């Protein structure tokens, strides 16, 4: 991050490099979003007969959407 950022650089979390909040929000949300989507698809598979074999591309869509959001956020910043 640039030196002029209004946010003070926080101490890094052990095991994970840290950027300032604005730059990493979408990126940090990406994993949990994918995890939630995976859970929903598997639950639909087990409970509703909506087979995971058919619905797995939703994971790619979520991943792609996150990437786009990340890109737009960085450009805005």
């Amino acid at each position, binding site marked *: 991050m640039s030196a002029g950022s209004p946010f003070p650089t926080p101490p890094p979390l052990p095991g*994970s490099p840290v950027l300032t909040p604005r730059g990493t929000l979408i*990126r940090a949300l990406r*994993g*949990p979003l994918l995890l939630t989507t995976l*859970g929903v698809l598997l639950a639909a598979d087990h409970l509703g*007969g909506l087979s*995971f074999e058919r619905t797995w591309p939703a994971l790619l869509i979520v991943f792609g959407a996150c990437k786009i959001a990340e890109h737009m956020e960085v450009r805005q910043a």
Partner: protein
Amino acid sequence: MRRGSLFAPLLLIGLGALFLVRNVYPDLQILPYLAKYWPFLLILWGVLRLGEIVFWATTNRPLPMRGVSGGEWAFVILICFFGGALNAAMGFSTWLPRGGIELGGLEMFGESYDYPITAEKPSGKSPLIVIESFRGNARITGGDQAVVKVSGRKTVRSMDQAGADRANEATPFEISGDGNRIVIRTNQDRVSFHQRVTDEMEISVPKGASIEAHGRSGDFTLESIDGPVTIDADRAGVHLENLGGETRLDVRSSDVVRALNVKGNFELRGNGSDIDLENMDGTVTINGGYTGNVEFQNLSKPLHFVGPQTEVTLQKLPGLIRMPLGTFNASNLVGPARLETRSRDVQIGEFTNSMEVSVERGDIQLRPSLPVAKLDAHTRSGNITLALPADAKFDLTASTNHGQLSNEFGGSIRIEESARGGTMRGASGGPAVDIHTDRGEITVRQAMPDEPPFAPRSVREFKGRTFKQFKAPKQLKQFDQ
């Protein structure tokens, strides 16, 4: 300082709760629930993580580079692997070919297209009717006619009419055979795995027919049939009324098995939730894990029930047994009877002939009828209450290793107290009555003539709750609640 995620402690609490429930209610089978609902663990994890990150962001705290770290993803894959394997092993899986598809769940894509089914075949008076494996519901009714008639509908779930028509043509409904053996075939296997075809059949058969039905998922309702009945299904609710022959059910996962007025021997194997048997004239043999409400009423011949944690044998049941989770209530049964259970509170009243009760954890209340027969009851941990009629003849030995003894019967019973427990003895020239608890109180008292039964007779109207609806189980459950 590192802010740990809430998920790990919550997972620990969840695991603790799971094991606690497992210990308190050993009869509750957790694995089937786990096999089905484990993906919600991932949803919970993801949502918690989302919440945490949004909270950290709004409070201007530093965010981790990745919301879910590499190690956590490895753990997710491990969970998926075990969850999927468990799901497949319990027979729920749709990942494995032809594993079966749950009906009535999420149906977001496509539409249902219905096609009528009608077929007819003349038969003898007592043909064997074979229904080959299918998904859907079947209601089979016996009558006086010498013909097998099928009516109903086939439902195809498809994105468009043309696809549904193709699936319909690919799965012709067939009824074949001669007068003695008639085969009903839905040919659902002929369409691809993703197209869902279900059949709802109303089948009328001669009263003397024998039935051999195979199902993948759906309900069977059988009424007024005199021949033997065999049902073999992966997932099914089964409702039987007025059957004359032997009945054998093998249902891997049943939400309800209900039978009324069955004359022949009845055998049930499998796993499931509720069992409700009433007016059974033959022997009843049940082998499997049933976690819901298990109820028997008016059995004329011996009952033998073997569950994972509970085993019951008795000779006759003019009264009622009710076995909701963690309890065993019985009234009016005829021995020699034996009950062995890991963890239930046991109440047995109005029984004749010998009785043997063995409980690992749980209280025991016994109220034998006159004349008192040989009685043997012991629990490792729990109180025992014995209510004897005032003029009963018995030879009592009641002991506890840790706990109090109280004699509310009076008369000839003496208490010998030891360091932590004691023994109660009393003889009036009758059969041996031995009761023992390792840890718990023992009370012997007089039974009052007007005490209410431990398991009062069911006042529910059987006809009203059973066969009115074609898709019976869901309606029934609502009614029962």
